[in-house]
């Protein structure tokens, strides 16, 4: 075949193609400094928000005991609670789905532990393990229904919000004729698994700090001589473990890549061989796991399970995740950001109390933070991803 003699409409075009030098840098792209590059990350909004919130409360409430050891523990516990459910909600949201049943799941899981462990009198470890199994199975069912029917997870999990809450009220009323079941702390006494959720760590160390006078000690009453903060609650330990686990899973493993891809564009991910359905169902199960961790820590701390526990927690989790820079439609976000969102949430909620601000104003504050964070995050995300 003689190429040059071919009667070609596009002969010149072809020659141009051959000589086309594609390796010229695009003159329309500005060089960016490495400092700017390292700063532009999904968590940036959360980092800025955290700094701003702490500055505000150091000014407003530094003399109120908010930053004493007891105050720090107070808002740390509240933040850790948010963090536990935010990690699950964050990974699920990045995978492109929602779970509105988190709050009801918290109430339901707590109630199951109480019924199994107190009413039925089973060993606490068995009650906890069975509750985890049931709740994770419900999470899987949530995911399975979403995948099979193709319905938005918003609707499916909204249905479970009501179903689970209904059972949470119905079960104790039918079995015990009341909506609060107590006696969990006594039932969990000496139980190894109960301790994993209800104990405190480093109690000796805190006693030592108290003895040294670094943290204040009770001066009167039955606990005189004990430090006011006598250890790190397992709740906080769980929060930190889950945040670390979620962050590593998302950014450092191939499964994390699949989470991003499933939420970013499920069809394209399938074309590339990503098991999208499996990823999504596993994330629903992980969200249920996080809700159950929250519930178990809570019933161990309170010593009781109530039918109204966990109310509105699903929205608080989603708010923390969104403050942390995740995209509501999936495919983008950061666990560290979600954890910072939870921290902001907890510090603001408790900080306003310390500062003596009328508690109803908390909602105003929260709304403003949410709005500001979302606007900032949208701007940052556009810088990173080139969306228009």
């Amino acid at each position, binding site marked *: *075949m*003689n*190429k040059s*003699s*071919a*009667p*070609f*409409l*596009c002969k010149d*075009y*072809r020659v*141009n*193609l*051959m000589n*086309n*030098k*594609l*390796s*010229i*840098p*695009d003159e329309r*792209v500005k060089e*960016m400094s490495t400092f700017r*590059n390292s700063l532009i990350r999904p968590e940036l909004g959360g980092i800025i928000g955290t700094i701003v919130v702490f500055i505000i409360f150091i000014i407003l409430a530094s003399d109120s005991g908010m930053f004493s050891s007891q105050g720090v523990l107070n808002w740390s516990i509240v933040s850790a609670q948010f963090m536990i459910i935010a990690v699950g909600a964050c990974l699920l949201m990045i995978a492109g789905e929602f779970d509105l049943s988190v709050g009801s799941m918290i109430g339901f899981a707590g109630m199951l532990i109480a019924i199994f462990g107190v009413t039925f009198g089973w060993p606490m470890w068995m009650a906890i393990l069975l509750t985890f199994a049931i709740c994770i199975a419900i999470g899987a069912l949530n995911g399975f229904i979403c995948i099979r029917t193709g319905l938005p997870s918003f609707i499916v999990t909204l249905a479970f919000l009501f179903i689970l809450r209904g059972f949470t009220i119905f079960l104790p009323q039918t079995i015990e004729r009341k909506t609060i079941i107590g006696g969990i702390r006594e039932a969990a006494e000496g139980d190894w698994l109960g301790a994993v959720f209800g104990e405190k760590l480093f109690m000796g160390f805190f006693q030592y700090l108290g003895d040294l006078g670094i943290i204040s000690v009770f001066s009167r009453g039955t606990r005189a001589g004990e430090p006011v903060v006598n250890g790190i609650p397992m709740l906080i330990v769980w929060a930190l473990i889950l945040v670390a686990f979620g962050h590593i899973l998302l950014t*450092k*493993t*191939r499964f*994390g*890549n*699949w989470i*991003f*891809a499933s939420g*970013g*564009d499920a*069809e*394209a*991910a399938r*074309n*590339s*061989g*990503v098991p999208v359905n499996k990823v999504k169902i596993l994330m629903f199960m992980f969200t249920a796991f996080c809700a159950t961790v929250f519930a178990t820590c809570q019933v161990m701390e309170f010593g009781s399970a109530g039918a109204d526990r966990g109310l509105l927690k699903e929205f608080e989790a989603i708010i923390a995740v969104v403050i942390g820079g995740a*995209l509501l439609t999936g*495919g*983008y976000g950061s666990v560290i950001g979600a954890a910072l969102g939870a921290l902001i949430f907890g510090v603001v909620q408790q900080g306003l109390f310390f500062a003596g601000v009328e508690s109803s104003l908390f909602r105003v504050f929260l709304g403003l933070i949410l709005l500001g964070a979302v606007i900032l995050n949208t701007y940052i995300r556009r810088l*990173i*991803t*080139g*969306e228009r």
Partner: protein
Amino acid sequence: MNSQATVTPIIEMRNIRKHYGPVIALAGVSIKIYPGECHCLLGDNGAGKSTFIKAMSGVVKPTQGDIFVNGEQKFFNNPRDAMQAGIATVHQHLAMIPLMSVSRNFFLGNEPTKKIAGIQFYDRKHADSKTMEAMSKMGINLRGPDQAVGTLSGGERQTVAISRAVHFGARVLILDEPTSALGVRQTSNVLATIDKVRNEGVAVVFITHNVRHALAVGDRFTVLNRGQTHGTAMRGDITPEDLQNLMAGGQELATLEGSLGGTV
């Protein structure tokens, strides 16, 4: 000139028929594709191009007809079977995830891993360096491997998708209208990519309804019309006007062309 007659086609589709209920989408189409060639599959809307490449990539099963890969008969039950036989499809829109970085997209589904303390971790360093290498080979300048695909142009995205398919061992690359939504410059980039890939010995099946784009890179041309093929023409054996007319089925376009000055 006829050296190709002695070479086994890398993929041969023989007498492929596909019926969707009462609709006959393909009425017996045969095609041979050789390594290192760019085989253009032309046809107007509804000609059966999409059905044909779906049969080739395992998305649909033909009602009748045989598929041979390297002379060996194959039955594709799903896209994974076709992928294993070295047949990769690059879709126009469903190729890349815009919010993810280039290197994460590049290795999506084939992530390299390394073991740290017995646990498998995503080997980011390896992925990043391989991606940068592949991209510079294709002439795309990235700010960095973590640049999001959303910041790339449409042509660059196609190029990333093509080089990804080739990197992971595609021997037949099916490009489904890669240039139909692109501007002139981006189109020329994609065509240049096709040329580079072809020179590496990969067979490219280039689906298009733009005769100019086909003629710019094509070695052989097969025109589909109403589920049938009018045979395969070698480069140089056919004029652009003939191709155009074959695609449109003759008549209607002839009068149009006069008023448009022959530049459809």
